[in-house]
């Protein structure tokens, strides 16, 4: 029993060392984060403002911009996470990954740490979306518990999609193929979800796809936590259960694939 506790503590500590490593890198070179921040600006200020005029999309008691803001936050998290896997291809080409794998760091801690560091990057995007939302007058919920809930959701979802991205990176192995597949994958995740329109207006087959898409549950949780008048369609319990289960499965696959990167 005692050894299990020591093992778990050590596992979490090692994962956090990997997160620390990525945060230190980010601090030295924040260019990528600034570039990524352009996208939510375009979606909220251009797309959002125009569609808010049409009133074509039924968003219940929320204005369209209110409805859209959590969706765009989820989208920024998705994009920054899904291209994060590229770094392991780079590290593998150089030989950095070999050194980590020859150290006594558990493979699972490498997989979890790398994925959670996507969470750290995603939080910078959350800050950008919050500032934008304030500027365009989205009615936000400033309750500290709700804010903690948003942070938790963002980190959890970023971990999920980063793990997915790492798996793709381990399978395709080259940067060129990864870029191609990354582009192809992000759009379906985004459009087959409730991020920019409610699922109820979709054709039935697309509704089924959207219900199998983890992004839907992330957006649902964010809508409930982020907005003053927000509500969850599925309930936060369902949202977090889906997100945590998906993350656990993906991290497990990632742990299994990690050592193959050194062969």
């Amino acid at each position: 029993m005692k050894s299990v506790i020591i093992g778990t503590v050590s596992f979490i500590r090692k994962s956090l060392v990997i997160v620390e490593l990525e945060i230190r890198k980010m601090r030295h070179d924040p260019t990528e984060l600034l570039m990524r921040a352009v996208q939510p600006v375009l979606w909220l200020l251009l797309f959002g403002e125009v569609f808010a005029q049409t009133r074509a999309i039924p968003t219940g008691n929320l204005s369209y911009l209110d409805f859209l803001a959590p969706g765009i936050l989820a989208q920024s998290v998705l994009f920054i996470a899904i291209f994060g896997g590229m770094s392991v291809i780079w590290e593998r080409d150089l030989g950095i990954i070999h050194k980590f794998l020859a150290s006594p760091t558990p493979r699972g801690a490498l997989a979890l740490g790398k994925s959670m560091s996507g969470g750290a990057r995603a939080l910078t995007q959350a800050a950008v979306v919050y500032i934008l939302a304030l500027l365009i007058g989205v009615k936000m919920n400033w309750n500290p518990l709700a804010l903690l809930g948003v942070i938790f959701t963002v980190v959890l979802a970023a971990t999920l999609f980063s793990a997915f991205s790492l798996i793709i990176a381990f399978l395709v192995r080259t940067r060129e193929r990864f870029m191609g597949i990354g582009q192809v994958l992000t759009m379906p995740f985004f459009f087959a979800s409730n991020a920019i329109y409610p699922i109820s207006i979709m054709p039935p087959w697309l509704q089924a796809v959207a219900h199998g898409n983890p992004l839907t549950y992330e957006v649902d949780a964010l809508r409930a936590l982020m907005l003053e008048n927000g509500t969850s369609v599925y309930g936060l319990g369902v949202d977090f259960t889906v997100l945590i289960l998906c993350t656990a499965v993906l991290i497990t696959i990632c742990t299994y694939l990690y050592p193959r990167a050194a062969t």
Partner: protein
Amino acid sequence: MKIIETNALTRRFGDLIACDNLSIAVEQGEIFGLLGPNGAGKTTAIKMLTTLLPPTSGNASVAGYDIVHQASAVRRVIGYVPQMLSADGTLTGYENLLIFAKLYDIPRRERNKRIHDVMSFMDLADDANRLVRTYSGGMIRRLEIAQSMMHRPRVLFLDEPTIGLDPLARRAVGDLITDLRDNYDATIFMTTHLMEEADLLCGRVAIMHRGKVAALGSPSELKSAIGKEGATLEDVFVHFAGSEIEAEGDGRDYRETQQTRRTARRLG
């Protein structure tokens, strides 16, 4: 005491036998060299011994631990410097060491002293807070070696430690390797394709050719064995491995060449 022992260690990639029935023993405190041309199986052997690559058959132990069944115990007692560039250019030298000090469980109160000591030993103390991508090739290599020995490993694996370095930096790294053995009581297991380097540094060498050990002994033993006046290790190699220095194309060549060149460019 034998600190590394391999027993018919074999690794196949499809039809290619990259490492063929390797059986060698390395004594504690030795500087042992694995010598051979590109594609001879040196890196494959070192990857198996550092637990990165599972053997297809055979077995090996490092410091008494089995490389397959006690892999995590092996990882605790070894240091490894890959052939390719393994220091992170987007971090400072200090940060590169800090992260590995944490991953190797060096206690917090000792951490800064160890990092400081190793940086002084490697003559990098003044550059600790510069980003590694501004370092010279020789400095990067020294940093990588520092990273791999901070936890006082019992065996240090160096895969082509001087590849891509200019002659001056090469000599500095060579001196360092001898120093490491003398001051830290580590066993050094290194690969190289440079005959004169092996001659200078290694107590014993194994000459690998097409995955097999063609000859094994101290450089002077090997030289006298071929019975030629004033023989160099180069002559020894030709004698035991035939005249062809380059292994024949096996499809891995292009990728390997690409990686070697890239490493060389970034270090140079």
